[in-house]
Every structure is written in structure tokens, then in C-alpha cells.
């Protein structure tokens, strides 16, 4: 117990002298920080490949003939599947070259569409990943991004279809901000409960998730249902003026939301690392007791962090509605909220890292659709790979022992979490 006290004192001193330990970590070279996530991704893809080979009937049949032909068949299957994944997500290089040679704008667009579609898939991931990362940086585990995303999407949808006659430059931002506000409100509740009663945000956000699912289910089959949808839980289509513009004609869905996401990521970075607010949030996140000694209002900080995190989650829902779907259905999210936990951790809870990991998973998810068509491998394999990567990123010791890496000199600070019974 005594060394715990010393620790607090040390952190407090660092804080006073302006040498927050968080800053020190930033000085590490990029490769040193990226090596664990990169090896985790590699290992995840290798295990995915093994899964593909192990569940293929033709591989088993080939192994029945001889071990050699078994391995060669397995290799062939993996190559077919993963090259389908690559061409599905990044385009066929041959086709892109040919299109560029032909100088036909339409052909070029079609050839690079897979890349653009990967960016479309990555967009909600960036928002959701930022939401989780901002929470982690502030010492909060926002596992309720999924619910906040649904509420944000519902708010954006409502503003999107119910208001008419507004010009697009007002209606579209209004609908987007409505989404952010919805998500922020949904996250503020657990933040408030944590600050005022100590109820742990993990449990409360999980509960809020399920309340959000039921609420949107009711909204879409009741007050917000599309006339003539025949009882299907489906919202009306939003007005043209509320839509986030897409850059190209119909089959290409690439939209401005991607750039909004990048801008918001920059904003989050600026807020977290360049402002006093951000420093306060991070101090409360790294050591709440030291923060309290330093005279920071931890309760306010918690509520602020949750609200901002929820706003980002709400934007993830809003951007999907306003730019891609144009109406809300129950199958809005393919688990963005839970994926975002992996994204934030793989990206080291840094906005730039989140963008990179979001691009990776947007690409994987987009390519998996093509892989399903070519090799009949269910798209769910992305979830499996994702879980494995998350596991390795969360437990770097496993990766280090696989690849015989040396231990780092200083222990990585871990996202901490105490029990959830209400003691703070």
C-alpha cells in the first residue's frame, strides 16, 4: 500500500512539474509502438488462413490422398481466398492499369471503386473507434458505442425525413449534429451515473445498449415507421437536402463523410493533446486520485468525456444514415460498436492509429464480401480474425513470446479498470 502512495505522489509531482508520464510515451519511435499491432495483425491473418484451409472440404480430400497434395491444396485455397480479399478491397491492379490506359473516366472510377468502397466501410469505424479511444484516454470504458450509434442514427434519421424546406447547407449539418447530440445524450446518462453515484460505466453502457436496441425497434415499428412498410421496422427515406453528398454516380458510394471523419479525428487529436481540457481528461484517465489531489474536478471530467465519446458514436450512426443508407433499418450496424473497441486498442487509442486500424478493418470487411463470392467463405471470418488481433494487442506478451521479441524497458501502461460495484 505504501508504494501505491509513492506512486500517487510521483505522478502528482510530475504533473506539477509539467512532466506528465503520458507525454514521455509519445517520444518513442513509431516502429517501436507499431511493432506489436503489426505482428498481431499478421498473426491474425495467418490464423484466419489456417481456419480457411481447415474448414475446406477439398483440402481434407487432398490430405486423404497424400500429405503433400494436402498442403498444396491448402496453399491454393488460401491464396485464392486472400487474393479475392485483396482484389475485392483494393481493386484488380491489371484492371486499374487498363482503365488508366483507356483514359475513360467511367472505367477508371469503376476500376478503383473497390478502394473507394473500402473507404466507405472505414468511415463509421473511424468515428466509432475515436469514441472508444477518447473514452480510454479519459479512463473510461465506453462499451456502449453500439447503443449510442443506434440512438444517434435514429435522431439523424428523424431530423433527416421530418424537416422539409431547408436548404442543404443547413439541413445536412443539422441532421448530422442531431445524430451527435443523440449519441452524446445516450452516453451522458452513464457518465452522470458514474460521476454522481459511482455506478460503473461498463455495466451501465451495456444496459443502455440493450435499451437503445429495444427503443429503436419500437421507434421503427411505431412512431418512426415508413408508411406502407407492411409492419417491417423501417424508417421513411430522408430528404434529399439532408444527405451527405456522394462524389460519383450511383454504384459508387464514396461520400464526403470520409473527409468529415478525418477532420473530426484531427479535432479529437487537437482536443486531447493540445488543449488544457484534453490534459485534464488524460490526467483523470491515467490517475484519477492524482488528478483529484491536483484539484481537478473528476466528476465533471468523466461526464465530459462520456458525452464527447457518445457524440462521436452518434456521428458514426448519423454518417451511415445520411451518406449511405438514407433510411434506418434494424440491421444498421454490423457490430461497429464492439469492433470499435478492437480498433481503438489496435490504434493505441491515438486518433491517427484509429484511422489506420479503421482503414484496415474497412478494407477487410469490404474484401470479405468478394471472398465470400469467390471462395464461399462466410464474412464472419472477419470477426474471428478481429477477435484474435484484439487478443494479441491486449496481451502483447503472447506476441513477444511467439516472435521472441525482447521485453520493453518500461512496462506499457495498461487501460485499467476496477470492479463495478460502485466503489470508485
Amino acid at each position, binding site marked *: 500500500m505504501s508504494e501505491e502512495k509513492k506512486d500517487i505522489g510521483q505522478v502528482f509531482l510530475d504533473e506539477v512539474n509539467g512532466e506528465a508520464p503520458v507525454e514521455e510515451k509519445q517520444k518513442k519511435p513509431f516502429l517501436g509502438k507499431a511493432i506489436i499491432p503489426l505482428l498481431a495483425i499478421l498473426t491474425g491473418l495467418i490464423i484466419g488462413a489456417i481456419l480457411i484451409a481447415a474448414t475446406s472440404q477439398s483440402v481434407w480430400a487432398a490430405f486423404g490422398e497424400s500429405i503433400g497434395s494436402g498442403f498444396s491444396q491448402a496453399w491454393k485455397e488460401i491464396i485464392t481466398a486472400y487474393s479475392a480479399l485483396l482484389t475485392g478491397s483494393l481493386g484488380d491492379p491489371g484492371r486499374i492499369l487498363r482503365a488508366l490506359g483507356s483514359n475513360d473516366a467511367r472505367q477508371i472510377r469503376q476500376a478503383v471503386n473497390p478502394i473507394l468502397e473500402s473507404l466507405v466501410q472505414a468511415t463509421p469505424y473511424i468515428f466509432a473507434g475515436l469514441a472508444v479511444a477518447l473514452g480510454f484516454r479519459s479512463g473510461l470504458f465506453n462499451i456502449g458505442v453500439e447503443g449510442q450509434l443506434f440512438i444517434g442514427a435514429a435522431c439523424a434519421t428523424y431530423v433527416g425525413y421530418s424537416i422539409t424546406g431547408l436548404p442543404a447547407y443547413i439541413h445536412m449539418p443539422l441532421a448530422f449534429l442531431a445524430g451527435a447530440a443523440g449519441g452524446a445524450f445516450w452516453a451522458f446518462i452513464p457518465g452522470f451515473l458514474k460521476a454522481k*453515484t459511482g*455506478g460503473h460505466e461498463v455495466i451501465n453502457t451495456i444496459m443502455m445498449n440493450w435499451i437503445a436496441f429495444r427503443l429503436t425497434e419500437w421507434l421503427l415499428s411505431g412512431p418512426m415507421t415508413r408508411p406502407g412498410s407492411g409492419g417491417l421496422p423501417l424508417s421513411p427515406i430522408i430528404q434529399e437536402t439532408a444527405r451527405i453528398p456522394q462524389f460519383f454516380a450511383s454504384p459508387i458510394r464514396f461520400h464526403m463523410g470520409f473527409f468529415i471523419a478525418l477532420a473530426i479525428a484531427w479535432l479529437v487529436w487537437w482536443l486531447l493533446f493540445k488543449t488544457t481540457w484534453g490534459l485534464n481528461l488524460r490526467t483523470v484517465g491515467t490517475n484519477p486520485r492524482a488528478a483529484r489531489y491536483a484539484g481537478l474536478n473528476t466528476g465533471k471530467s468523466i461526464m465530459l468525456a462520456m458525452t464527447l465519446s457518445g457524440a462521436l458514436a452518434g456521428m458514426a450512426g448519423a454518417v451511415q444514415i445520411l451518406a449511405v443508407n438514407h433510411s434506418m433499418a434494424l440491421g444498421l450496424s454490423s457490430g461497429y460498436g464492439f469492433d470499435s473497441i*478492437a480498433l481503438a*486498442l489496435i490504434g493505441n487509442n491515438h486518433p491517427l492509429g484509429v484511422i489506420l486500424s479503421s482503414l484496415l478493418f474497412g478494407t477487410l470487411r469490404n474484401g470479405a464480401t468478394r471472398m465470400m463470392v469467390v471462395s464461399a467463405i462466410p464474412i464472419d471470418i472477419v470477426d474471428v480474425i478481429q477477435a484474435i488481433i484484439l487478443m494479441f494487442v491486449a496481451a502483447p506478451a503472447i506476441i513477444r513470446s511467439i516472435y521472441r521479441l525482447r521485453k520493453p524497458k518500461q512496462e506499457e501502461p495498461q487501460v485499467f*479498470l*476496477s470492479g463495478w460495484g460502485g466503489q470508485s
Partner: protein
Amino acid sequence: MTTTSNVIQHKRIHEISPARKLGIGISEVVIAVLIFFVFALNTAADLTTRFVMTPGGITQGTLRDIVLPSKTTLFILAAIVLAIGIFQLIRGFGKQTNLLVGVAGICLMLAFLVWQAAGMSLNLAGMLSSAVLLAVPITLGAFSGILAERSGIINISIEGMMLMASMTAAVAGSLSRNVWVGMLGGIASAVLLALILGVLSIKYKVNQTISGTVINIFSTGMTGFISQKFLQTIPGLNQPVMFSRVPLPLLADIPLIGPILFNQNIFVYLMMIILIVLQLALFQTRWGLRLRSVGEHPKAADTLGINVIRTRYMGVILSGVVAGIAGTFFTLGSVGRFDEGMTAGKGFIGLAAMIFGNWMPVGSLGAGLLFGFADAIGSKLSLLGSVIPPQFMAMAPYLITMIVLAGFIGKGQAPAAEGEPYEKE
């Protein structure tokens, strides 16, 4: 230092603070007012509510229907709750406060049913019987949570373990044509996941919520993958044999209670057996004391010679066993085939039931039954032509849990060392 503060905290929950006394009293009066003004005054005087007291298709332990005059019944229920509330405000019930809150809650539910079914007939026994069945995965999920959390490991992957177990049970049950093999297969898969949770949280000291999330994502992906790759293309893999209804001799003949509790399938009996074993083992045996001490104060437990690491592994693995049983319920005890995502958040409601039940087996059963009942009412509401959407009923468990967690009804007491990896010095 921590020990003394814990002792103080434990003491506090047994006393009822004046603010809580007032708050509970006022809520009870509000319930009474609600029953009186919303339910009773909106019911025509000549209506009766008929409660059918035997579940459909049951021949043992039958009971005659009960016909109640709707309006009078509602007045009486309002009066009972009002009396409880006023007594609470003036004198207070002391230790019995929570019990009386429960009585008021039951009165509210009964009043709601009388009001909704005024002029109609409602199969109350059938509803209770299905509530018990719906409570099985929730309660077992809560037991699974208790086993892990009492040893100091947060387990939010109950849902994932249940999902994996339900799929494995479907495959094992289909291949072997034997329910027990199916069940064992399901349990084995859940235990495997529990082992991963244990290794990540105990050995590698990964944040336990993240380890749980890993397992949840993995299970969703893996079950979806296998289901699409194999179960949907090879139908023989997804037709498990099911556990059938087993009426217990003599007990099943008790009117009302017999059909509801003792004429069910094996999972309901398993739930009761695990309840008794768990309650006794946790609080009456040396094993239970050790498990709890590891969850409350691992350092002290270690000083006394208890192997903290081994005890935590045991807690997590047993948690996996129980979550596995809960998962096999879906395929072998309820639906008879595996569907993607078929656990539909029951694991998380189980977590809620555990918190509502204050990390106690008996309390969790109560919470599980309550949530199961809310589920059963929800599915009946639309049949009764109710104005209340069934989704709102389905929200109830989550809302109640948040209220409990915020300390409005009575603060739960989580194991003190929960979520903290143990480092031996």
C-alpha cells in the same frame, strides 16, 4: 486500510438510511396512486378478469380458474400498496424493507395484469410456467457470473460462451443423437472459452472487460462462420434431439406449483440443483470461503496460504461450465436447432440479474424469475391488445439494473478485488 473500509461498507447496506427510507416510501405511495388512478379508475365496474390456473396441455395438478371482479381487485391492491407505503414513511420496515418492496412490486404486476385482462381471460399459470422457462438462461447466466466474479474475475463473456455452447450442443447432439453428449459438447466448448478468458485475465493480466470482449467477438464470428459454412449446407448437423418435459413424480401433482415448477424439462431442475449447491458451497463450505476471500482480498488470502491463481482459474472454469449449460438450453431445451445470434443478449440480462441479485445465488434466481416474467408478459401484451409496446417491457430488466446500480433501491456489494489482476510479490 482497505479491509476496514470494506467492513464499514458491508455494515452500511444493512442499515436503511433516512433518505432511502423516504425514497422507498414515496415510490410505494406512487405505485398505489398509479394503481388507483390509472388502472382502477379506467376499468369498467362490471368487468371481471379470469385467470386460468393450469398451463395449456397439462393434465397433472390442475386447478380451477379464478374469476376476479376487476375494479374491486384493483382497489384492494392499491389499498395494500398504500398501506405498505404509509407504514414505510412513518415507521419503516427496517430489515424487511426490501421484502416489502418486492410485495409492492408483485401487487403492481398483478394489478397490471388484472387491468390489462379486464373482461378477458388470461392463462396466468401458463405465463408463470413460461416465465420459469425463460428465466433458465438468465438465471444460469447469473450463476456463471457469480462464480467468476466471486473469485475476482469480471466475466462479460457469458453471452459469448452461451452462444458457442448452443452451437456446439446442436452439432454434438445432431451427430450423436444423444442429448447428454450434446450437452457435454456444449459445456466443453464454453469451458474452452473460459480457459482463454482465464489465461488472458489471470496469466497475462489483460483488462478483464477486454478479454471478455475478445471472447464475445470471437464467438459471434465463429458461430456465424460455422453456421453458414456447415450447418446451413449440411442439414444433418443442425437437428439435435431435445430434452423433453419430465414431470417429477408426486411433486408434479401439486396444484399450480406442480405444473409451473415440477413439470418442466431437465434445465429447470438443473437450475434448482445448481442454485442449492452454489448457495451452500459459497457460504457454508471452506471451498466457498476461499473463493470469496480471493475475490475480496487476494493479498490476505495469499498470506493465509490460499493459492490465488489456482482458485481464480477454478472460478472462471466453473463459470464456463454453468454458462455452457445455459447455452445448451437454447438448442436442446427450447428451440431444437441453432440459429445465428440466438442467445439474443440473454447473457447480458444474466449479468444484470447477477447485479440485481447482489452477487447472491438466491437473489439472482429471484432477479432471473422477475426478468423471465417481464419477458413472458411482454410476449402476452400484444395478444391482449395492450397499449404498452412489448419492447418497453423488454427494457425493464436493464432499467432496473441501472437503478439498482445507482443505489436507488439498495446498493449492491460487488466483490472488492474484482477486476484487479493479482500480482504475487
